[in-house]
């Protein structure tokens, strides 16, 4: 569906917040913009450690878009850490790994959803609809 159609389906402004965790600047910009268009207020960090730290500072998000491969702390470690911290947000793994074992390891770390990179409007909408149903 087109973005304007997507906007008429979802009215998320003020309802959903998100955290983008990705070391790739191009992915950061695309995901940030994608979320903005859907009216989802979002924050962007560059690796898993920053994702953990922002939660330690007291911030919470409905949705976390977690890249797998990042320096300092990768997506698998960060997901495990956040779950250990009691974070129950929807965590959607976003990765370019197509090998099933690698995908499985990421999912088992505590993901609610998994999508191949790059994210599209449609993929993001399906992730967001899961949050709405969770609530």
């Amino acid at each position, binding site marked *: 569906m087109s*973005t304007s159609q997507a906007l008429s389906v979802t009215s998320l402004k003020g309802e959903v917040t998100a955290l983008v965790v990705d070391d*790739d*600047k191009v992915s950061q*910009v*695309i995901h940030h*913009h994608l979320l903005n*268009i859907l009216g989802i207020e979002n924050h962007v960090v560059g690796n898993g450690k920053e994702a953990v730290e922002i939660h330690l500072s007291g911030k919470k998000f409905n949705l976390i878009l977690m890249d797998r*491969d990042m320096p300092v702390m990768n997506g698998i470690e960060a997901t495990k850490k956040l779950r250990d911290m009691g974070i129950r947000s929807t965590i959607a793994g976003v990765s*370019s790994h197509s090998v099933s074992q690698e995908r499985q390891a990421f999912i088992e770390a505590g993901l609610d959803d998994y999508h191949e990179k790059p994210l599209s409007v449609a993929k993001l909408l399906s992730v967001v609809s899961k949050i709405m149903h969770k609530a």
Partner: protein
Amino acid sequence: MERNNHLPRQVALMRQSLFDQGYLDEQFVQLEELQDDANPNFVEEVVTLYYRDSARLVASIEQALDKSPLDFNKLDSYMHQFKGSSSSIGGRKVKAECSQFREYCRTGNGEGCIRTFQQVKREYATLRKKLEAYFQLARQAGPREAASRST
């Protein structure tokens, strides 16, 4: 005011040829979907960011290919990042060459890596030229033409 009425058509044709010739894939269309009146140059901005940001990766791979013996794990890791970034802008041919490079890393084929990297760089440079030409023409045609796409 004089206006070149052929420009929108030229822009559309140029855009279509980039897909037909395999330079771009569906992901580029996804980027176009994110472009609107509030962000009329989004696609061009992302592509510019890609070329700026990936330059360091290209340099790192180049340096790593100069070493002896080759560290295939490191090369593969760099290329994984580069491939991810390239696929984010829909760079189909660049992405294909990246995959080939990674295959050579997996089999420890140094010559294959070196040869393929030349192809990666060639496709990377070609795509840049073609997209620059496209964006320039689209800007001349006017914001409405630049933001719209034919199905």
